[in-house]
């Protein structure tokens, strides 16, 4: 199982981000820490997991929390379940709050993998994104992280910014390849409702990136990374030397994960209260309300929904097809003992048509996308869901 504690605060609002995050003048860190610790204990006990495979500190900006808080949460995890030394413990960090001493503090607290939010190595682009750091600061932060977490530092990059050219993107990626470690996440910019950037684009102040350009950018980037020895193991994720993110793989493999903190999502079976079905859970969004709930009843779970067997299979399919391994027969069988992958998608229907067009493969390994199909996954999924729903 994989706990994912959320630190909900940021120092500044980025122009593209619509996550559940809060910019407040002062955070009562001791109180938040106590609540994160308490909720971690409550939920881990509820899930009755024996051993934790990974922990992922997300946010907000978890690198704004003090190493002490990270340490306290990890202690709580270790207290409630087995936390092996080999378990992956990732912290998301912003270059502006990731100096060497601070990162060393996180390492001492138990963090062994760092995901650095570089986003771009161009100052103008960083300003457009509303980031606090400069390209130089990002370089410094990545170098510091690589020094402390060699082979276990990941960088995030964004492409498809309004006005960004194919050349500019290729140059930026080239520079990033010279800087990066063994894991890179490449995200096409999604214009999210309610963000400043989306408002500017939809209002006409900034140009809408053309669809074909975005496709070209993605294709170029994938080719460049593969040429540099990276495995394209998920839509937006690349790793070499086996440096895949264990934690993120657990989402795509539909394993259990436990969301802790304001607005965190989880998927697990609450065996501690006799539950037998996988549940989708969401914690209370707003930090103060969440804290009051944790203080009064030990957790801030706001919504829990039992997932039907079909809903679970739909998630297995939707998430699994994002990876290069796809949905394996074994994983499918785990969620669907009676209807095999072959039975669900081998019969004439949508999946067969998609296979014929060269976008999908169903073979001894399981069901997965070919490279061309992966880029079109969201157009394939509604068809596959229709086919699954008919079974």
């Amino acid at each position, binding site marked *: 199982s994989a706990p*994912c504690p959320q630190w909900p605060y940021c120092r500044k609002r980025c122009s593209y981000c619509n*996550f559940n995050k809060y910019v407040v003048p002062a955070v009562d860190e001791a109180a938040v820490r106590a609540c994160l610790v308490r909720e971690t204990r409550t939920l881990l006990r509820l899930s009755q997991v024996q051993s934790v495979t990974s922990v992922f500190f*997300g946010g907000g900006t978890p690198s704004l929390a003090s190493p002490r808080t990270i340490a306290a949460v990890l202690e709580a995890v270790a207290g409630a379940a087995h936390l092996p030394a080999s378990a992956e413990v990732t912290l998301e960090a912003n270059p502006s709050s990731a100096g060497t001493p601070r990162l060393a503090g996180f390492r001492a607290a138990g963090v062994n993998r760092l995901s650095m939010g570089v986003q771009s190595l161009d100052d103008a682009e960083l300003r457009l994104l509303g980031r606090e750091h400069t390209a130089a600061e990002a370089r410094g932060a990545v170098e510091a992280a690589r020094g402390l977490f060699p082979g276990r530092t990941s960088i995030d990059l964004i492409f498809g910014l309004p006005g960004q050219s194919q050349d500019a993107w290729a140059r930026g990626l080239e520079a990033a390849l010279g800087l990066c470690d063994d894991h890179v996440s490449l*995200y*096409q*910019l*999604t214009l999210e409702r309610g963000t400043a950037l989306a408002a500017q684009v939809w209002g006409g102040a900034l140009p809408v990136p053309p*669809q*074909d350009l*975005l*496709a070209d950018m*993605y294709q170029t980037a994938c080719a460049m990374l593969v040429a540099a020895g990276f495995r394209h193991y998920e*839509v*937006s994720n690349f790793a070499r030397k086996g440096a895949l993110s264990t934690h*993120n793989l657990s*989402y*795509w493999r539909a394993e259990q*994960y436990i*969301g802790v903190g304001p*607005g*965190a*999502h*989880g*998927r697990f079976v609450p065996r501690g209260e006799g539950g037998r079905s996988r549940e*989708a859970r*969401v914690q209370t969004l707003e930090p103060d309300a969440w804290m009051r709930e944790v203080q009064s009843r030990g957790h801030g779970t706001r919504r829990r929904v039992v997932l039907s067997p079909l*809903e679970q299979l*739909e*998630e297995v399919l*939707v*998430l699994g097809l*994002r990876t290069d391994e796809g949905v394996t027969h074994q994983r499918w069988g785990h969620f669907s003992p009676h209807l095999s992958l072959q039975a669900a998608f081998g019969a004439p229907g949508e999946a067969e048509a998609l296979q014929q*067009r060269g976008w999908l493969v169903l073979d001894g390994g399981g069901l997965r996308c070919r490279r061309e199909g*992966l*880029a*079109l*996954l*969201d*157009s*394939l*999924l*509604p*068809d596959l*869901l*229709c086919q699954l*729903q008919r079974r």
Partner: protein
Amino acid sequence: MGLAGRTAVWWARLRSSRPAAAPRCLPPRLPAACQRPYSSRGEEKLDMSTYPVESIRNFSIIAHVDHGKSTLADRLLEITGTIAKTDRNKQVLDKLQVERERGITVKAQSASLFYNHKGINYLLNLIDTPGHVDFSYEVSRSLSACQGVILVVDANEGIQAQTVANFYLAFEAQLAIIPVINKIDLKNADPERVEKQIEKLFDIPIDECVRISAKQGTNVEKVLQKVIEKIPPPQCNTADPLKALVFDSTFDHYRGVIANIALFGGEIQKGHKIVSAHTKKRYEVNEVGILTPNEQPTHKLYAGQVGYLIAGMKEVTEAQIGDTLFLYKQPVEPLPGFKSAKPMVFAGMYPVDQTEYNNLKSALERLTLNDSSVTVHRDSSLALGAGWRLGFLGLLHMEVFNQRLEQEYNMSVILTAPTVPYKAVLSSAKLIKEYGKAEITIINPAQFPDKLSVSEYLEPTVLGTIVTPHEYIGKIIVLCQDRRAVQKDMLYIDEHRVMLKYLFPLNEIVVDFYDALKSLSSGYASFDYEDAGYQAADLIKMDILLNGNPVEELATIIHNDKAYATGKFLCERLKDAIPRQLFEIAIQAAIGKKIIARETLKAYRKNVVAKCYGGDITRRMKLLKRQAEGKKLMRKIGNVEVPRDAFIRVLKRQTDK
């Protein structure tokens, strides 16, 4: 206090001006029927024999929209004591919600007024007329029961297009015309100018115009006096055999058909056996009465009078408008009657959801009972399912009908683009045999016969009248030319206003002409039209193809000259309405095998959400499942998936720029 005080004084003056004497002629006191429908049953019936033909006047009020027809009607009803005088009397004759909302009259209503003039009690039958061009059929129907009209003109706006159209309807029917200039209380009123216009255009001497303010009641009484003096009584005789014209009918869920009748001879009463000249069916009269404006039973109705009749007719079609009723075994020469209402605009109507089909069907049936001018044919479309092709008198009629469906029956429907009834003169012997005639009417583009088997296509035309301040003439002429119209006349009706007459192909004005005219004249130009028969036209059927497969519901009949522009426009619109898919889509406009316009919707090359981690899954799944559901509702044309609303989005707006 000002207004209330004035009103009170005015009312008192009117009351006192009514002679209290003349008992012989005073009608029995009328119950306040207008407050309660059918409240009068069981009460004493009126004796209409006290109103001989000489003291009867049958008249209508005709006017351009908003010139104050309904307000004048309200005042007349008040003055004659037909309805109580209250502040709430607004559009008393307009019973439908849509009429009150839009301030227009859709369905003609009638009311009998009692008025004493120079010691004689008169029965004045006011037959209301709809105020819009679409309903001119109803106007001429109403006029057939009249001997005169009050022609109302706004003192500020002057003569407008409908004023002209209505005048000629009355003039051609040889009715007495009383010109009334209304709204003289308005600041910008210029009655002299309007009087001059009336003189110039209608050849009516200036001194015959009555200046009134219907809103304030000024001079309204004078209008009534003119009605009595200038409009002749009906020419008929009670001693003759019964001859009754059915000029309107309504449907009542409890009592069946209520036919509005005008007696051109004889008398009628409960128990009479009557025969319809049209259907030859026999009925027994259950009830007769007058409209005040609700039904007020009377013992009898006599020659020259106007009222209603209930005689066990179950369907509105039994009370055919224009039909003549006579007594059993006393047949008479039927009255000329009317041409039946001719639909000018056709559109497909479909339930938004097919499960609503039966509900919509019954709503349509009930609504058409009261509006027999709507024609209904069953139709079906691959995209929209089972539905109907409806014929309307005009676009407003179509809108009003749709609004009534929504308001009175809570139905929401999909209406396709309106089309007009084209004709084709067939040359193929085989087709002529198949249709049983050489000239066919095409109301659905799907039935458009191929050019090879047709000697000539015909399109309906209308003679349009535009009245406009002269500064807009240039723009209006350009607009009309763009609509393939031919100028027939141009006349300055005073130094500032011009009346233009154009012959238009109907399809050119059906959708947005009126809006275009209004917007380029800042709302000052008015428009009206009348049927002007058919003309030969170079018509073609244009298909829209998606990857080579025709989209049946987008097939249109258009004039050859407009094909390229319309084809290009439809393709562009469709390109925006269809989402990108996994393959390239060619959107083409074609005439026969010839492609005249093309847009290409490129294939998706990338469509995958960038970030998908624990937190985003629930939202993601919802979206995908909605898309999966949506796929089931898509209309498949070849392998192209088209959202259902795509056609509506393309069709609903005008196909003209």
